[in-house]
């Protein structure tokens, strides 16, 4: 979890609530972070 948050931190992600980190969930988080910028 911390590794993924770290990897996504340049996009402004500082925490992830839901597990497991499936490919789709990570993709959705990235899309959300991009559109929030």
């Amino acid at each position: 979890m911390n590794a993924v948050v770290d990897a996504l931190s340049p996009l402004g992600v500082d925490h992830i609530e839901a597990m497991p980190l499936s490919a789709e969930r990570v993709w959705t988080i990235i899309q959300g972070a991009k559109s929030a910028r």
Partner: protein
Amino acid sequence: MYPAAFDYHAPGTIKEALQLLGKHKDDAKLLAGGHSLIPMMKLRLAQPKHLIDLGKVPGLSGIKQDGNMLAIGAMTTHWEVESSALVKSKLAVLSEVAAIIGDPAVRNRGTVGGSIAHADPAADYPAAMIALGAEMVCEGAKGRRTVKVDDWFKGLMTTAVGEDEILVEVRVPVLPASTGAAYMKFPHPASRFAVVGVAAAVTLDGKGACSKASIGVTGAGTKAVRAKGVEAGCTGKKLDAAAIEAAAQKAAEGVDVQADLQGSVEYKSHLCRVFAKRALTEAVKRAGG
């Protein structure tokens, strides 16, 4: 779970198999490897009263060249396709597709005809068959007929094979000159089924522009389909990275993308575009572009 009770038949000829099929019709299912059908029977998603095993029918397996086609017997296993020297030399992409189906047990028992007749929406061969322009040969009491791949997949696990017919052979054209083909998939981590898989065959003309593109998509919808938008986006263009990117954006257009346990419609549409781009990039590279 145990399957529902059924009678097992092991015909010794195609004629005998057709007679059994004609007699039991909807109550019968053909067994052609069983790595899809048997699990479905155990889950009682399928409850055929009669199981007709094609394993003892001679002449249904093997790969031979017939003009510009590879004629692959329906009962040829995925491993036989994967390891065939003929396939590797004439149509290497098909060997690559076979090599990433399921797991070793599936590849050793599962068959080309079984997969194509079962038409699982997430199976690998269907996308490749669409991209390569295959033909299916069905045999019935009245003889044989050939169905082009674009007329084959009708819907979820439904094909053009008649209820009294058996798919006996799959005919796949060898790649023409200046043509490259590739299959790229996002495999389900446990089953190795394609969450989304895209097969691409690209022909380049003398100037390096795309004269023909043929793209098949599996996994996304209820059946494998041709990505016509991507094909149109490629034809006539010099397929550099930007042109491939632009064409691949159309990969989910015209596909009835279904949300399932593997992903939402948006995510699977995204995978269509990503894997169309990867398959096209590799196909163009192999075509010499």
